[in-house]
């Protein structure tokens, strides 16, 4: 039997880089094929080639044994390839059914949308694949996991037999992840082929049949999942044996360095996003905040960092009372560092140079500024040293930050924030979309900072990260703190339940 997808010796070059070199990928019908690799390994490029978004410079693509040329995604869809994007491509103000039929509308003879039929069709589709949805619900009202379901149905509706899933679990809770994995197995049973891109080894091991590992644009391993081990795959990804455990000593917490008391915050629609949040972070400890995205963590960070001033409650940094009207500058002066969760818009100016990005937040650094003036050449020396120390790979300090890969950019941001020597560091989703090597590095740096006596507030929806790094963990749900756990004495399942709003655990 022919392969569902066979990509033979695909080569794709971009100016200055070879993103894929002689990459061969063979996906069997009715199987789940894991595609794994670090950031910048070429996974996304390869999938964009398969989805017709990029045109390869060499090699050929066979769908069901027949060579094809994919000019654009439309071509790919007509060859029954579908892609579930990492960032959903849904229209929030439309209903589920409207979203699903968007690419191939169901119309009456007059050319007007036949919503009744569309609703029935969507309902039927959902039942067929075990993905029940309410076709009349508005997408913006749905939780993330449900939106993802709509996204998958949309692809199935267009007739996809080959599904590309780009990091589908990144936004889900552990329970939701399990649900998704079950869905994938069901789809496989129905004869679909699935290409699963992921960073998470455990998921990979639990559902895939075959695994292709990419590193630096070339294939470094093709294995049957049943014959592979997590360690072996990880070493194929990074090129060396690695250990997952972050080595750290027992925390020696000192005095309080960050105190939040009774924080309330309403967003501009009047929805309460923070509801009586109180906690403290002490010197030399990492306080983890676990929670599914959208339960108030983002707002908490905005309130603490001064990005919004429309909150109520009391914030103290060290012995300095932070007034509500204090802007980010004042808070930085009071010792705050901030690794933002949205590095593309808040953490960096992608169009600005790396050097300009490095200077941000350091306008009073005497190393390279004098009253009113900046010495860019002196700043370059500092930035070079710090970037080297943090293993940031770049061509020149004059290149735009947007030219860096996700992991590299994150390392650059971490390098900048740690260079400012903060007393309190807010690290929000520090390893989101970052490869294993860079994640390990960032974790090490956070622990080093902790051991140097700084207070760290770690906000992450990645359970493993929160559990392994934090000294204490509090869980946020629906804008409130629902409990505190000791990461050494509790399980991920327990924490997952709390994250889903089911109280439990012990404080």
């Amino acid at each position: 039997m022919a392969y569902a997808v066979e990509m033979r010796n695909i080569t794709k070059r971009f100016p200055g880089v070879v993103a894929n070199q002689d990459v061969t990928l063979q996906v069997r019908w009715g199987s789940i094929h894991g595609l794994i690799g670090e950031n910048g390994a070429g996974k996304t490029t390869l999938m964009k080639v398969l989805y017709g978004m990029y045109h390869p410079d060499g090699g050929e693509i066979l769908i069901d044994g027949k060579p094809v040329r994919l000019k654009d995604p439309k071509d790919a869809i007509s060859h029954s390839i579908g892609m579930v994007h990492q960032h959903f491509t849904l229209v929030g103000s439309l209903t589920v059914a409207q979203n699903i039929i968007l690419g191939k509308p169901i119309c009456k003879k007059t050319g007007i949308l036949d919503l009744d039929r569309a609703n029935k069709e969507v309902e039927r589709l959902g039942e067929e694949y075990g993905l029940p949805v309410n076709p009349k619900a508005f997408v913006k009202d749905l939780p993330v996991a449900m939106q993802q379901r709509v996204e998958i149905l949309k692809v199935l509706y267009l007739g996809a037999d080959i599904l590309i899933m780009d990091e589908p679990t990144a936004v889900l809770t552990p329970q939701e992840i399990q649900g998704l994995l079950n869905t994938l197995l069901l789809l496989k049973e129905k004869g679909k082929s699935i290409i699963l891109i992921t960073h998470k080894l455990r998921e990979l091991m639990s559902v895939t049949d075959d695994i292709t590992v990419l590193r630096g644009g070339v294939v470094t391993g093709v294995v049957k999942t049943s014959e592979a081990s997590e360690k072996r795959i990880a070493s194929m990804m990074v090129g060396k044996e690695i250990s997952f455990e972050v080595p750290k000593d027992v925390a020696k917490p000192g005095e309080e360095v960050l105190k939040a008391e009774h924080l309330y915050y309403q967003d501009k629609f009047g929805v309460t996003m923070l509801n009586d949040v109180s906690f403290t972070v002490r010197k030399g400890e990492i306080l983890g905040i676990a929670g599914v995205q959208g339960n108030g963590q983002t707002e908490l960070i905005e309130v603490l960092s001064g990005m919004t001033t429309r909150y109520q409650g009391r914030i103290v940094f060290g012995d300095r009372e932070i007034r509500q009207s204090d802007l980010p500058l004042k808070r930085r002066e009071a010792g705050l560092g901030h690794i933002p969760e949205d590095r593309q818009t808040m953490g960096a100016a992608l169009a600005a140079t790396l050097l300009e990005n490095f200077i941000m937040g350091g306008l009073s650094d005497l190393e390279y500024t004098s009253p009113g003036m900046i010495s860019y050449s002196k700043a370059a020396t500092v930035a070079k040293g710090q970037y080297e120390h943090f293993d940031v790979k770049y061509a020149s300090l004059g290149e735009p930050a947007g030219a860096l890969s996700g992991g590299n950019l994150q390392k650059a941001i971490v390098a900048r924030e740690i260079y400012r020597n903060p007393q309190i560091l807010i690290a929000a989703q520090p390893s989101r979309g970052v490869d294993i090597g860079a994640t390990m590095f960032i974790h090490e740096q956070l622990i080093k900072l902790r051991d140097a006596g700084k207070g760290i507030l770690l906000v992450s929806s990645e359970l493993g990260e929160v559990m392994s790094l934090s000294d204490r963990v509090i869980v946020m749900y629906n804008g409130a703190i629902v409990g505190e756990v000791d990461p050494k004495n509790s399980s991920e399942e327990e924490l997952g339940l709390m994250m889903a709003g089911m109280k439990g655990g012990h404080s």
Partner: protein
Amino acid sequence: MNFEFRQNPINVRTALAAIFIGTLIGFVMVTLFGYNPVEVFATLLKGAFGSAKNIATSLRWATPLMFTGVAAALSFRGGMFNFGIDGQLYFGSLAATIVGVICTGVPGIILIPLMMLTSMVCGALWAFIPAFVRVKLNGSEIVPALMMNYVAIHLTDYIVHYYFLASGTNGDSLKTERIAEQAQFSPLASGYQLTGAIFIGLFVVLAFWWLMKKSKLGYGISMSGMNPTFARYGGIQVDRMRILVMLLSGALAGLGGAVEIMSMRWRFESGFAPSFGNDGILTALLGSSTPLGTLIGAIFMGALKSGSLAVERYTDVSRSLATVIQGLIICFVSARLISKYIGFDKIAENLSVLFHFNRKAGEKDA
């Protein structure tokens, strides 16, 4: 709104390709209207660069654009669209002229700076209104800035008509008395149009360069323009930067008007600054809002102006058609990828490869 404020710089290839295409279309047009294209373009070129005098004229027209160009570039870099440069210029220059007309007894060394200061303060005031609308009232600065142009242009006319009309005119031409003699610049050499104003213009460009490349303020402005969220996160007060950048921009616009009056007109006249503001915006766009780019853009626009004036004067082609040619060239220069689109990049690349190849071959031979 999401704008890219650091545009790709225009490279030499783009500029050449644009001038070539603009000229070509202009050629066709001029021919279609029954003129001799070679003559027209020779005149244009000669008018711009033909003699020392013509070069001086080009620079004379480039001078006001250095002020308005930097005014526009500065606002763009700070993420604001100051489309009200004309209004700020008119308002600022009338105020300066009034000072210059009234203070006849003040020595030039005091009067000139005083007039400059007046124009800058009044230009900044005029720019404050759109800035306020944007920052405090959460509106767009573009609409009020544009509308304030009309207000300024007609209000200055009104003020001149009813309060400062030059004696001897009966309202048939709207102009004030001349400013005090000690504030009138004289040409650098007799017979040339160029005055010391160009040095003030160059100083403004230099100051813009210093601001953007050396100062903390320039960094704050630039970052606020490129990514306001990032700037706020890093401790820059974006709202303050936005107001400041508009005030500076308005001040430069006013200064440009005042210098034009001291340098060339010696009095405020209705419509004395034909589209300096819009041309300044174009200058900034051509120059990617960088200091050097704005300077080159100003000189380019000045040369076109001087050239088209010559076309009007020495050929039968009317000013309108000359302006059309000017517009065509600018139009294509702003199309940054044009040299790639028409295959010019490939040709240039092949040529350079050929060149290197030959040189290498030559080296081997030797």
